[in-house]
């Protein structure tokens, strides 16, 4: 019929690379992230990331709000680790204004930070397992996160985005009975984590899906600027809580779990161990809670002298940094947020070279991105 010959007669049989869009609306990308994959069969030859679908212009926005007004907004960056974002900005402003935070407030911050880290890791654990197909784990993770949200609601009044700390200290003491509830929760969580390890760590399917997948070497991980458990899974000991100590962290005894191979399984193990360490830190902080004042001496109108500071905290996803340039007014002249997810996502390129499509899902899950933070 057709004047042209069919393709198989025209030329020798050949294979072509295929381009495939993954996202922006895709359950495994954890938000609106688009990956343009160049495929050879099922194997990924090249990955091209497209981000920015959730860009809200928070950095521009910050230049029009005072230091205090900004605090609740940075909750929305990494909405699964809101308290940690709060700690970052509050710490940066305190460093800029050279405010001293009472020791009790620091302890309280450590407790809430670690609870938030637990919540974030539990959510990561839930979604990561779901990506690899373990469906029940999603519900277990969310179920365990729920008491943490309840604790936050009882203390801060909000569950997800609590606007946790004011600049200079903390708002209120823990309500009565909170500490006991917290201890009870931690005690109940420990056997639960053991249960999940039985479900996944030893499981041959889980191991086959994760071991040797998405490998990134120690040198590459540093060069790509990865941070958090994604970096530590490759065996680099860089934890802001230890390396650039802030708040009351130097006073606590905890370990930094490290991986060896830098694959998905190592990152998974790192986070699981980190959860146990978080529990340890919270227990120490609850035991050693000092007496004293909570609210620091923060001025009502905060005018910083001209200058710049860079303050980083260890957020659940990695090193979260706030770079503030002040021009002498009560508003930041420029505020830059080093968001760990953004940089970690960059490493995806390196990790997914030669991986299969199904591995890609596992790798995205293992670097634990939150698109709100990637796009800011």
């Amino acid at each position, binding site marked *: 019929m057709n004047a042209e010959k069919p393709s198989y007669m025209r030329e020798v049989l050949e294979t072509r690379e295929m381009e495939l869009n993954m996202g922006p609306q895709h359950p495994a990308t954890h938000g609106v992230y688009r990956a343009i994959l160049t495929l050879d069969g099922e194997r990924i030859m090249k990955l091209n990331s497209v981000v920015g679908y959730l860009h809200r212009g928070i950095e521009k926005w910050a230049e029009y*709000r005072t230091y*205090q*007004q*900004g*605090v*609740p*907004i940075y909750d929305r960056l990494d909405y699964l680790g809101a308290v940690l974002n709060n700690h970052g900005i509050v710490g940066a402003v305190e460093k800029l204004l050279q405010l001293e935070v009472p020791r009790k407030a620091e302890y309280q911050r450590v407790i809430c930070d670690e609870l938030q880290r637990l919540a974030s890791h539990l959510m990561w654990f839930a979604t990561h397992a779901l990506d690899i197909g373990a469906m*029940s784990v999603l519900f*277990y993770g969310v*179920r365990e996160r*729920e*008491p943490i949200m*309840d*604790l936050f*609601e*009882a*203390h*801060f*009044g*909000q569950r997800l*985005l609590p*606007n946790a700390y*004011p600049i200079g200290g903390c*708002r*209120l*003491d*823990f*309500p*009565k*009975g*909170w500490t006991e*509830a917290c201890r*009870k*929760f931690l*005690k*109940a*969580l420990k056997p639960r984590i053991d*249960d999940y390890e*039985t*479900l*996944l760590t*030893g*499981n*041959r399917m889980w191991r086959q899906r994760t071991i040797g997948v998405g490998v990134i070497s120690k040198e590459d991980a540093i060069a790509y600027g990865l941070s958090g458990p994604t970096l530590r899974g490759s065996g680099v000991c860089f934890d802001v809580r230890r390396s650039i100590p802030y708040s009351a962290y130097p006073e606590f005894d905890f370990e930094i779990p490290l991986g060896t191979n830098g694959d998905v399984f190592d990152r998974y193990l790192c986070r699981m161990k980190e959860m146990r360490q978080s529990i340890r830190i919270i227990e120490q902080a609850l035991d050693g809670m000092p007496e004293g004042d909570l609210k620091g001496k923060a001025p009502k109108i905060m005018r910083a002298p001209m200058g710049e500071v860079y303050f980083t905290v260890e957020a659940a996803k990695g090193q979260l940094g706030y770079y503030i340039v002040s021009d002498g007014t009560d508003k930041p002249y420029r505020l830059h947020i080093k968001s760990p997810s953004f940089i970690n996502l960059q490493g995806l390129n390196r990790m997914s070279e030669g991986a299969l499509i199904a591995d890609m899902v596992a790798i995205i899950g293992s670097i634990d991105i939150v698109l709100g933070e990637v796009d800011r």
Partner: protein
Amino acid sequence: MEAISKFIRMITFPELFKGMAVTAKYFFQRKVTEQYPDQKTILPYRTKGKLHVDIDKCISLCRFCEKVCPEGCIKVFPPPKELAKTDKRPVEFYINQEHCLHCGMCVDSCSTGAIHHSDEYELVVIDFKELLGDKETLPYDMIKKHYRWNYLENVPVKIKDSPLKEEEKSQ
């Protein structure tokens, strides 16, 4: 010997059955689902719900809440100066709950405790008007009890009976 035990482990799937035992364990435990409209959530005292204003307490001239609000959803109209000497109550007070972040900074900054969060959390409305509070609608219905978390230091914690607690009891 080790090779044999490894082989046996390989063909008998012990770790898979352990995993199945875990799911089976949770099969028989208490379920965590809250059937929301039938079963109302128990809220802690500090819950930051809808904003309400005790108009009689407001001194209106400071306008701290208006200045501190990051979303700019509060607007206070103080009375003219001659009047303010005797009656400091605001002429008009607008809160646009549609934009409220529930961050609680206005409550922090209020020196008389006029503005406060209530325990009203069901904010889904069909008509946006219902979220625009003015002087008539902002005062809270005093018959219902409400909690002002800015002045309540150390009230006992109210956490809902989560399944974790249940397990504690049984152990």
